[in-house]
């Protein structure tokens, strides 16, 4: 049953079958495409992680030679970041930003189609690179030269893929900025926008600012590889460390590109299920903005062991520690939102609460790593692996899961299976901690990251982490099943399945009609977010 038969009111011609998806300019269709693409990449990059953990189950080389192992770690990172996390958030922006601000569609619908369809092209390049001579790129997702310069044709394919992904992100971001700034329903001032929209507005500015930097730096790699330049080669007057400076000037805002929309999701879900307005809306907006600005001033904390002068180390230590302040404000506001609410624990809420709890642990390890002397011990160890998985899995990925469960009823018109959702939640949360918590200990005890084989004293926790990882991986199949089941049927959701929800999408029927808000909604006298 396609959307046209469901909603005979909107009988404008649109293609059916494959052509519908190839040619669609509808924000809901494109949002759906982004989300399916993201899920496919999540499962694929996740299975690479399963191979990594299988190899690390015991000391010694079991299944994979080091050359292949390095390809898996590099591609796992690259695909999770650019294939799974970022497209998922763009998918949510596509579906939800127009619905939440009362706009009929995105500002540039055709551009929107193009932004999405660039992604599969980039993904094909990256996947195909496993099959070229020498295998896929194996220099880590951070692409550090001179190691990157040594690689084969796959490295050039990676550069091209990154260019395509970057163009897609920039176009998507421009579209989101334009939509938010121009297509809000009358009466929805900036400070009445739902926080999810705010976080995306700021994220989109970050994307526009830093993706060109990534594009520049990979172009420099390309010309170093093939056209005789020496940007990163000391023998020609270049400097390999300059790559790291430019890369991380992109890379650190990139971290916040992956976490700010997650903050927006949590700030949407917690008030809904606490049945209480978000605490400190204005300070939340300012906190997100300060985090975004500070994110441009902390890049070199990824490089404390490169040997920068004391003044450099101290500056980046202080600026990094400063980020803890607005981040702390957000966590405090979420707790205060819960305080004296009327709280219930549906699956989206469980995921959102887990994000608050586990992301905060990732914040603590971030604080530990901000201290230069401690960082020098822990840089490039499993402690860092633990840290960024607490931020990016239990921060970004679990907030994506929370949002899927939260909005699926609106998108499909059906309730998901609550029992399966909760099963997915508990298995994911427990397995995640069994996988990644021991990695803190491994890093402290001295295990470097990105190694296919390790000394015997690391065996115990590695085995534990591998077992956790296998459960974590398998649990995601439950997620896939629950989503498919919900799309195919289930109890009718009604317009507003969550009684505490306040944003505009819940004023529409479920599933949301193919075209919505063709005439702008009239906002209640009660503003969306009162902040006196």
């Amino acid at each position: 049953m396609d959307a046209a038969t469901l909603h005979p009111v909107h009988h404008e011609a649109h293609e059916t079958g494959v052509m519908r998806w190839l040619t669609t300019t509808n924000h809901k269709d494109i949002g759906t495409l982004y989300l399916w693409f993201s899920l496919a990449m999540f499962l694929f990059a996740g299975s690479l992680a399963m191979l990594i953990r299988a190899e690390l189950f015991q000391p010694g080389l079991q299944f994979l030679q080091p050359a292949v192992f390095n390809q898996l770690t590099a591609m796992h990172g690259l695909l999770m970041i650019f294939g799974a996390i970022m497209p998922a958030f763009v998918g949510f922006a596509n579906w939800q930003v127009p619905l939440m601000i009362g706009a009929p569609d995105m500002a540039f619908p055709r551009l929107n189609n193009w932004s999405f369809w660039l992604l599969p092209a980039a993904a094909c390049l990256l996947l195909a690179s496993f099959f070229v001579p020498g295998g896929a790129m194996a220099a880590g997702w951070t692409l550090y030269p001179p190691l990157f310069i040594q690689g084969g044709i796959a490295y050039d394919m990676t550069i091209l893929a990154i260019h395509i992904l970057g163009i897609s992100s920039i176009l998507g971001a421009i579209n989101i900025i334009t939509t938010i700034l121009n297509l809000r329903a009358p009466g929805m001032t900036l400070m009445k926008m739902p926080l999810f929209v705010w976080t995306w507005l700021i994220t989109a500015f970050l994307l526009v600012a830093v993706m060109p930097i990534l594009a520049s730096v990979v172009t420099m790699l390309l010309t170093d590889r093939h056209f005789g330049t020496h940007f990163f080669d000391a023998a020609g007057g270049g400097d390999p460390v300059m790559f790291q400076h430019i890369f991380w000037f992109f890379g650190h805002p990139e971290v916040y590109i992956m976490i700010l929309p997650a903050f927006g999701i949590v700030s949407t879900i917690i008030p809904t299920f606490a049945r209480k307005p978000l605490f400190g809306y204005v300070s939340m907006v300012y906190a997100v903005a300060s985090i975004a600005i500070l994110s441009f001033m902390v890049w070199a904390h990824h490089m404390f062991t490169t040997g920068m002068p004391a003044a450099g180390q101290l500056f980046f230590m202080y600026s990094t520690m400063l980020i803890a302040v607005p981040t702390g404000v957000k966590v405090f506001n979420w707790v205060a939102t819960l305080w004296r609410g009327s709280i219930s624990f549906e699956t989206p809420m469980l995921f959102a609460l887990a994000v608050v709890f586990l992301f905060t642990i990732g914040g603590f390890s971030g604080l530990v790593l901000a201290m230069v002397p401690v960082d020098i011990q822990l840089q490039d160890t499993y402690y860092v692996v633990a840290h960024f998985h607490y931020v990016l899995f239990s921060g970004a990925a679990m907030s994506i899961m929370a949002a899927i469960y939260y909005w699926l009823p609106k998108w499909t018109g059906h309730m998901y299976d609550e029992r399966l959702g909760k099963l997915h939640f508990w298995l994911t949360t427990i397995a995640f901690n069994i996988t990644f918590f021991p990695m803190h200990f491994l890093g402290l005890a001295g295990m470097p990251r990105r190694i296919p084989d390790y000394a015997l004293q690391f065996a115990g926790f590695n085995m534990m982490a591998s077992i956790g990882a296998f459960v974590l991986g398998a649990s995601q199949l439950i997620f896939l099943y629950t989503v498919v089941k919900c799309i195919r049927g289930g109890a009718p959701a009604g317009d507003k399945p969550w009684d505490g929800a306040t944003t505009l999408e819940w004023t529409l029927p479920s599933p949301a009609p193919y075209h919505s808000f063709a005439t702008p909604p009239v906002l209640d006298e009660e503003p969306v977010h009162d902040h006196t």
Partner: protein
Amino acid sequence: MIAPTLGALGAMAGLAINLPPPATGIATEIYELHTLVLWICAGIFVVVFVPMFYALWRHRKARGHVAAGFHGNTRLEVVWTVIPMLILVGMAWPATRVVLAMKNVGGSDLTIKVTGHQWKWEYEYLDDGPRFVSNLATPREQIDNGQPKSDHYLLEVDKPLVVPTGRKVRLVFTATDVIHSWWVPAIGVKQDAIPGFIREAWFQVDQAGVFRGQCAELCGVGHAFMPIVVEAVPPERFAAWKTEQATATAIAAAAGKEFSLAELKTRGEQVYTTNCAVCHQPTGVGIAGTFPPLDRSPVATGAKAAHLDRVFHGKPGTAMQAFGPQLSDLDIAAVITYERNSWHNQAGDQLQPAEVAALRK
């Protein structure tokens, strides 16, 4: 919760859950700094999550709790912005002190140049001492699970870095190919070795002992296989060790001797396993697309001089490094002879150390 439980279980099972026991003043300060931050985090954890879980328990809809309507409190928001700032200042102060101490490389008693190569470390005592390459000592059979693993599996080397106790040792770092990172946790030094640049660090060990670490920056397929072993010995023993090294070098230099094909091949196989097999593989087939094969290769079956040139000078822009400065004349002669007469290569000729020595002039 899960986290402390795991930690406790791990500790009970004898697994390390913290930084290793520090062997230098700096490592001790880092250890204490980490403990301090951990306690601060634990405090914040309690302050944040006790109220949160209390609310989750008490203010449940299932208990019939009715939501309050408040959504802001300026005084509270100022408090929880200012207090974290003060805590951060309290953390930054001791951290700054340690940063400055770590940077203070002046007044050192000896300087050692550390050079990272794919995948081994080279040490040169710049004042008056020896220069040697330190390789992984774990046999390939252990890595491939053909033999039981030794106690210091992957953390053992053929020649450790020997340093005197009670002396300030300054290290200068560089690399020849890609970025490596020299890390010994107990000593509290981790410094990237960057090709074309010099970086420095220092340490002083007061108690004799053996300290192990490994490369911490992804440097290619052998990244897991370039460990570091530092042996701190009393100054008298250090002086004796240096004399020994000088003698060994003198013997190696007097390499006028002619070796037989069999002698060269036997030694060459060891050299090959240590230096070449990671890329070109024990069977000489290489890794398609990344590392060329030696078996039936034009270089290993062609002219001897060209083969020697490639090994001695390397191939710029690739992972094939110049082994001339790293290996002795005998080792270069041996490994080339081995490569020319192994697998399907049947050149039948041999190279003598004297021919390599001629290149050095």
